[in-house]
């Protein structure tokens, strides 16, 4: 996948997130304050604007996406999902193609950076759980479409896994055991993002 296709893929990702604003709002109302959907919409709408003048390289496209999300989403989601793209962009530095390997590096770098920024580890019922499942699932033989399909499936498994977890960080923490049964809205966002990457690449 070259730079031009990467920009098109990132646009498809943004459009998928925006289309799911109500899904994210309702998921967040169950465990948080209900602003996740509208925040993500603000951020990814800004990402679309940032990609209107297509960046020349893959890492520039991911960085521009991340900066737009960071500056416009607000809240924990802005810092975290902005970090996914800005930190993950480094995996593509100096490369003309997204390969299965650089895609796996993107996931691993994003995972490490989010963990550091948020001071969280897997198992705390956050988006990091979906990212962790996705990063491990992506370690398959095959082409980029297969790696992305595996990652998207992993993220979905991560969403399912968060249902059984007790939130120990963020606004959902105060729910304690009452958070069990609800998926984490940030994890759902990760699944939407990776699902859109899979769909674009498979098409």
């Amino acid at each position, binding site marked *: 996948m070259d730079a031009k296709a990467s920009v098109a893929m990132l646009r498809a990702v943004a459009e998928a997130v925006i289309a799911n604003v109500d899904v994210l709002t309702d998921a967040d109302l169950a465990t*948080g304050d*209900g*602003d996740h959907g509208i*925040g993500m919409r603000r951020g990814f709408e800004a990402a679309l604007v940032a990609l209107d003048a297509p960046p020349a390289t893959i890492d520039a496209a991911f960085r521009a996406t991340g900066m737009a999300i960071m*500056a416009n989403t607000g*809240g924990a989601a802005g810092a975290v999902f902005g970090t996914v793209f800005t930190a993950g962009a480094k995996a593509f530095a100096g490369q003309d193609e997204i390969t299965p390997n650089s895609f796996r590096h993107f996931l691993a770098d994003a995972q490490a950076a989010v963990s550091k920024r948020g001071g969280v580890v897997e198992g705390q019922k956050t988006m990091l759980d979906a990212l962790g499942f996705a990063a491990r699932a992506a370690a398959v033989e095959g082409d980029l479409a297969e790696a992305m399909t595996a990652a998207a499936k992993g993220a979905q498994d991560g969403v399912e896994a968060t249902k059984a977890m007790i939130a120990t960080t963020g*606004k959902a*923490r*105060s729910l304690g055991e009452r958070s069990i049964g609800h998926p984490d809205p940030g994890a759902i966002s990760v699944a939407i993002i990776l699902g859109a990457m899979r769909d674009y690449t498979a098409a």
Partner: protein
Amino acid sequence: MTKVPKKILNDPRRAVTEMIDGLLAASDGRTRRLPGLDALVKTTLPADRVALLIGGGSGHEPLFHGFVGDNMGDGAACGQVFAAPAPHVIYETAKALDRGRGILFLYGNYAGDTMNFDIAAEMLQDEGIDVRTIRISDDVAAAPPERKHDRRGIAGDLLMIRVAGGAVATLGTLDEVERVVNKAGDWVRSMGVAVSAGSIPETGKLTFELADDEIEVGMGAHGEAGFARQKLASADVVADQMIEKILSDLPFVPGDEVALLINNLGATTMMEMLVVNRRLRQRLDEAGIRVHRTDVGTWLTVQEMAGFSITLMKLDDELKGLLDMPCRSVGFSNMGAA
């Protein structure tokens, strides 16, 4: 059918920006907007002072941005409703406030605020600007005392901003300001009770559900769960329940002097809060605790949420002096000594 809360707004997606325009107008020239940003700073900033930057999500007006003014915040970075401001908004606000003596970031202890303010602090520190951070964590319902660092910030914010505003006006160094504001933070305790929910303008949805005959003691400022969902009870019963938790947490002991603050979360009547205040004074008198000053009003709201919170801050002579300083902002003004 779900009831959609009524609000008189224009485009809900522009509500924060338009609210700030109105706030600036209400300050009668004493604050100005940073161009293109949801951020405001004092029009006049005395030279050679430590800067006090406050901020957080909007929707809690007058907190935080309504507390930019004389002997209060020097400037505020504003987020969208219930969402922390972005790093570049905080960074630009800090740059506008910096007078070479360093900057104190003072905000509520939430994951989103911590991440965004930390990113901004790292950007400023890379430029050699001294930034210190104090996160307000006064909500005793949010975590046990040994995990105070996990507690949220609620209406104790107003007392903290006044202490910090007084500190930057009278103390010369960031070290001294940090010391006294940390002391106030160590000594402030709050707890809220929710009667009914508020809603985010852009979603039109209530942030939680409570039955008509239920209240939730200990609920946070965004509808975060408290520790007891229970049947509606009398003012004296609820006040006793809350003040016992607060008193035993620090703990406050006979002979202590305190600031007492009762905050309306949005839709509770002044009558109810004054009835609660009556009971609190009886309980504090019985406990041998002297109230140095009382503030009853509307400072940290959660849109149309009904309920209130109670805050106590233990005081020594230094904190009394700072809290008693005259101050003026759109959200809170004080003539002087209690």
